């Protein structure tokens, strides 16, 4: 059962490293090691150690996320904030930022959406090419109308998504995420514990990076910018 009211339940069913990409982490570790030792190697070997691909742009190698191709994710169908059927694949050709949350989420969700508006500002004017997808894990309260009103507050090219609980459950599981209702005596009503990854999805629909809630708008923008640059040239 995916849905639990027990706050004592151990969260993070996907306790393995979610941020594992196709081909594992070895390639990443190797690249990092190469990057670290590159100057050293060069110094030892003189001109002969000139990197083979020295002509390739390196701007993002150290101060930007290293994009990968994730196995998790993929196409899904939900209901958009206009009440229409939404398929992720209908938006292939667009770069997408995907986030799971709920509108009654008083802290982390608005903070994340506000952060995404700053990502758009960083990317201006290309920010318009990025589509933000906000998937509600609280379909009882988050009707399409409510999502439309809520997202309208943020200056974002965004679509709010809801649907049947089992469709939402399937989608979040597909993306390696999870959620449950906290056992709470708060007057705020049901509070959800949820994963807060922000998924960067490329124009083909492949997840290329998982940002965390601690990542800065600049860092996220530098990840998106790599897709904007590599795919428009």
């Amino acid at each position, binding site marked *: 059962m995916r849905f639990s009211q027990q706050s004592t339940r151990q969260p993070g069913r996907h306790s393995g490293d979610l941020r594992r990409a196709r081909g594992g982490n070895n390639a990443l570790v190797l690249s990092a090691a190469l990057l670290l030792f590159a100057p050293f190697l060069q110094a030892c070997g003189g001109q002969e150690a000139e990197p083979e691909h020295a002509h390739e742009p390196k701007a993002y190698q150290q101060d930007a996320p290293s994009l990968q191709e994730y196995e998790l994710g993929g196409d899904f169908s939900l209901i958009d904030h206009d009440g229409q059927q939404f398929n992720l694949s209908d938006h292939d050709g667009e770069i997408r930022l995907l986030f799971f949350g709920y*509108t009654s989420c008083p802290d982390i969700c608005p903070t994340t959406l506000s952060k995404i508006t700053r990502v758009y500002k960083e990317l201006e004017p290309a920010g318009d090419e990025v589509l933000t997808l906000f998937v509600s894990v609280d379909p009882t309260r988050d009707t399409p109308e409510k999502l439309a009103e809520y997202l309208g507050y943020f200056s974002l090219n965004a679509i709010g998504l809801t649907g049947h609980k089992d469709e939402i459950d399937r989608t979040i599981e597909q993306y390696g995420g999870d959620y449950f209702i906290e056992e709470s005596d*708060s007057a705020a009503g049901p509070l959800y514990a949820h994963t807060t990854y922000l998924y960067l999805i490329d124009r083909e629909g492949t997840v290329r990076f998982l940002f965390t809630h601690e990542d800065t708008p600049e860092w996220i923008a530098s990840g998106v910018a790599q897709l904007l640059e590599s795919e428009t040239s």
Partner: protein
Amino acid sequence: MKKAVLLTALIALVVVSGGQSSASPVEGSADVRDQLSVRDAWVAEALPGQSMTAAYMIISNQGDVDEELLSVESEVAEKVELHKMEQQGEMMRMRRVDSIVIGPGEEVELEPGGLHIMLIGLTQEVKEGDTIEFKLNFESGANLMVSAPVKKR
């Protein structure tokens, strides 16, 4: 009558704080008067369709003993609670907490993604440019009056 009281309170706040946006006069016994203070207080503008919002601030305790924040009062909400966001494994948890303890010589930051004050059941609009008054009640009997501007996140 209520208006007059509110006005007096506001004037008192402004006088004590010298017009700063985040005033923190302390009521209570003389020995805690100078030991508790608040700075950088702000309230997140309420989002459309939402009857809740959050308030953030940094509470300092310059005293020699623990100070325990038990409750917060505000006229703009039916209920005010203390909440805590906490990353646990891959999940972001959010729970109500009974109190917040500020150790001697320490400060506690109520910030997005961490501890915060939840304003539940808003009784009025909370828009950018507004100022919200809070009364913080401590276990020691001390009270802290805080005046916080509303800002967009």
